[in-house]
């Protein structure tokens, strides 16, 4: 009888633990505990371009707005280019970082925070899994992509592409 009552006490505890642990494994595994970072694949750098300091360490920083001619002349800015240029996002003094409008330095893998300064609703939808591509498991670990994986930050409009072939005509088996 006594044994039975002990078990009775333990049962709710056990259920509680089971609940907590299942919650951890089931819950959105993207958000790391205790931080507001979201795990994403590495940023899509051009080959051999990062770390930027590898070249920039040798140059004196020049904060003056200008057209780049010697290097990075392949970058065509089509992203509010009338009002912005390189150093509105890239940091003058620490080339391996980006900075927010507040001046706070952030890593390239947190670039979504930078994008979200202007594109607030999009950032919110991305965090909720509505905007952007999610792969993996519908009931578990998902993979996110950074904004920059789909949108080139220098000209973010999604690029047009060649469509795969249309279906054959079901009546003749031939293309119309």
């Amino acid at each position, binding site marked *: 009888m006594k044994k039975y009552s002990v078990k009775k006490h333990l049962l709710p505890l056990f259920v509680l633990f089971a609940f907590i642990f299942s919650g951890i494994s089931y819950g959105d595994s993207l958000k790391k505990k205790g931080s507001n970072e979201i795990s994403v694949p590495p940023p899509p750098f051009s080959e051999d371009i990062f770390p930027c300091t590898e070249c920039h360490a040798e140059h004196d920083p020049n904060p003056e707005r200008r057209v780049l001619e010697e290097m990075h002349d392949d970058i065509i800015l089509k992203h509010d280019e009338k009002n912005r240029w390189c150093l509105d996002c890239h940091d003058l003094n620490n080339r391996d970082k980006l900075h927010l409008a507040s001046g706070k330095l952030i890593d390239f893998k947190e670039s979504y925070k930078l994008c979200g300064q202007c594109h607030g609703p999009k950032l919110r939808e991305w965090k909720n*899994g*509505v905007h952007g591509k*999610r*792969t993996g498991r*519908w009931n578990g670990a998902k993979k996110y992509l950074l904004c920059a994986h789909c949108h080139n930050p220098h000209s973010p409009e999604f690029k047009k592409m060649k*469509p795969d072939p249309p*279906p054959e005509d079901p009546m003749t088996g031939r293309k119309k």
Partner: protein
Amino acid sequence: MKDERKIKENKETRRSFLKKTALATTFATMSACGSDTSWDEFFQKYFRTLSREEKNQIIKRLENKYSEKYGKKFSVSAKGPIDNTLFGYALDVSRCIGCRKCVYACVNENNQSRDPQIHWIRVLEMEKEKGIDFAHSNDQYNPELVPEEGHFYLPVACQQCDNPPCVKVCPVKATWKEKDGITVVDYNWCIGCRFCMAACPYGARHFNWGEPDIPEEKVNPKTHYYGNRPRNKGVVEKCTFCIQRVREGLYPSCVEICPVGARKFGNLLDPDSEIRYILKHKRVMILKEELNTQPKFYYFY
């Protein structure tokens, strides 16, 4: 009296003659059905009502058959629904660019016949000025680049209706709605009458007019009994939300491939799922709402 009975015992009666004829006809029909129809397959019972053991036997038989046919090790799952799950799908119409990547990812995943060609997903090109207008839509568009100016794209596959008209018309109950909301077909029970195709207002069901042809190197050997296992000529097939993937917790193939992330999938019973967020916060519509089919495939923008 006694004499009459004796005669019956000895002589061939009308009844026994008919019995033998019927048996002979059955054999003749079976041999005419093609060499790959085995006795067991021909006399397979209604899969849903079978015991686990009987199901396993059937699955083993199918795995062997497919492995032999395609020269690859096949697995055929009969995994049931996950508890407390009702699948829903949402597609962002404003984001789809009509690239048809989903169409071919689906073909590769779900072993549709390449020739004659079957596509479970049809992408309709529509004019922005007309809105959703099936009569003026075009599935044959093929420009150099998509999206085209002034157009939007509406991919249509099975809407996984909560009130599916296709299920109601099936005379042999070869198609039904599973507990997790997926309408499936038992290809071994389908008699190919195509009533369901006539009943479906979305053109989502497709008939194998010819013997399905899937190149050996392209066939996907990871299959489900109700999903992407190879079909026979003369049966109807349709999208199953990639039942072989989603019942394992994975996203459907079309979700994985979509380059713009327009396709969203999840559990409608989970209030924290993406799909529930979309239903709560976005402008959502369903196709042909007036027919009361109650699709679980939502379009949003």
